[in-house]
């Protein structure tokens, strides 16, 4: 091939070649879109087939649900993103988790006056089960966590805080930074924490410990006990377990008092 010199002609030819490439680029994108449309239809059919065989498995088997969710996450698919998605429509996973979201919100709202908007996953689980009633399908703690993660999109402060071997669920937009969560984790064992506890375990100065505890008090997450032996105890109602507290009726409370 002749090697053309640099000049107007060469520039023009280059421009023509670029335009042709650009044209092909557009066609390619359109091609891909058409291809995707076809593949989507095929996928929908495959999913329908899968659903007809294994829909019950997902409904009844929480371990399978976990595997399903993990696999989706690995490939970059969110089956719970939209109620209009294939996964939700055909496998019914959507309604299951979105309804659970509603139930979680209701439980948190009902108990907020008591625990300030912080609740252990265990207690949330128990309360949700109670609310769902005897004839509803059982749910696992993993199911709750997934539903809560979705609720974060609603912007009202749903958070998941790891403590001990479990989680605290936050349902109000209280600002909790790392200092606060670390103190919550410390309190998890006994349901309360003192300034000395914090200084001993975390090696903080008094002022830092005091500030964190005051913040928790302000947010309604902690209760101050000045009658405790030794120094003031800061109790976290969210961490009260059945070992410490019991649901008693007003009559029972009256009878118990001298």
């Amino acid at each position: 091939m002749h090697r053309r010199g640099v000049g107007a002609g060469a520039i023009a030819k280059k421009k023509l070649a670029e335009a042709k490439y650009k044209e092909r680029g557009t066609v390619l994108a359109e091609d891909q879109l058409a291809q995707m449309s076809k593949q989507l239809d095929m996928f929908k059919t495959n999913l329908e087939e899968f659903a007809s065989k294994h829909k019950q498995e997902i409904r009844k088997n929480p371990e399978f649900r976990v595997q399903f969710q993990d696999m989706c996450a690995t490939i970059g698919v969110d089956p719970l993103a939209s109620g209009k998605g294939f996964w939700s429509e055909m496998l019914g996973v959507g309604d299951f988790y979105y309804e659970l979201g509603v139930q979680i919100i209701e439980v948190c709202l009902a108990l907020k006056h008591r625990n300030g908007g912080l609740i252990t996953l265990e207690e949330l689980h128990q309360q949700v089960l109670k609310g769902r009633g005897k004839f509803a399908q059982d749910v696992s703690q993993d199911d709750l966590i997934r539903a809560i993660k979705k609720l974060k999109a609603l912007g009202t402060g749903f958070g998941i805080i790891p403590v001990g071997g479990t989680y605290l669920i936050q349902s109000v937009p209280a600002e909790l930074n790392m200092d606060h969560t670390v103190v919550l984790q410390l309190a998890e064992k006994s349901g309360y924490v003192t300034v000395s506890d914090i200084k001993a375990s975390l090696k903080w100065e008094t002022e830092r410990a005091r500030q964190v505890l005051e913040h928790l008090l302000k947010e309604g997450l902690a209760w101050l006990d000045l009658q405790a032996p030794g120094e003031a105890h800061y109790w976290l109602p969210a961490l009260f377990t059945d070992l410490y507290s019991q649901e008693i009726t007003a009559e029972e409370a009256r009878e118990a008092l001298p």
Partner: protein
Amino acid sequence: MDRFVWTSGLLEINETLVIQQRGVRIYDGEEKECCMAIPLSQIVFIEEQAAGIGKSAKIVVHLHPAPPNKEPGPFQSSKNSYIKLSFKEHGQIEFYRRLSEEMTQRRWENMPVSQALPTNRGPQPGRIRAVGIVGIERKLEEKRKETDKNISEAFEDLSKLMVKAKEMVELSKSIANKIKDKQGDITEDETIRFKSYLLSMGIANPVTRETCGSGTQYHMQLAKQLAGILQAPLEERGGIMSLTEVYCLVNRARGMELLSPEDLVNACKMLEALQLPLRLRVFDSGVMVIELQSHKEEEMVASALETVSEKGSLTSEEFAKLVGMSVLLAKERLLLAEKMGHLCRDDSVEGLRFYPNLFMTQS
């Protein structure tokens, strides 16, 4: 059922609480009965029994024969070698999971032997086996194989499905790149089509990083529906509702084919653009609300100031109670008033209290 011993119900030394579940009925074999304890070491094997119509989910617990020096319990002898735990108030899934874990870990074998309860170290060769244990173990094997087969078939099918799904993800990424580069060579129609494909698959929009990408046809329709559904509830609640309230209200009303949180947010984002009588508003704190267009939060601030002035000072809770709105929204209103300079805060351990801003008015 003679394996039980009486116990106080409190934890002994070396005992830890693994899981508690209310509403569990205990069956001796098939007979219904009714605070008793069995050491975990007495358990040979557990299996699940799914719930049925009118029947709650159960866990069947197969037990070793009672040891001769067992502490007293409610029964002296029993013809059954298993009990059933019936979960009247659910919780069976978690209980079974934790119990299986404990059966695998067998922590009691590592603990110092407490005098009262004897520990069995599993089935011992040469020991007299109770009638039925061999049968149980055989059933266990069969059941395991059956379950494994079902699970592995489902899992296999699922894996195949995921491979196809992954192809779609890759394809969508490639298309998105092309769209990004061309910047306008793809028609608007095609972009809309693309977004709806992403919505169906649950793939995050690679360009905007939002799942399902806002602005699909579906969300537009949804926005219009919401405007219709929410008009009356909003008027009842003073023109403003938090997005969580809206989510619960709408989904409770639908009953089926519920909206995902993201569906709701994406639809609400389009309200203003579609010139509907509602709008989405995000406060500084991140709290998201729906307001009627006619609702002017800034005007409400003026009346909030009046209310606070009348009472001298108010916390969010007190204000919420007075006005009859949720504490969350009450707080936002007071914070907005503060931002506008009408209120001052007194932030102490006793809570956040708002006062009229006298610095402004009395200069």
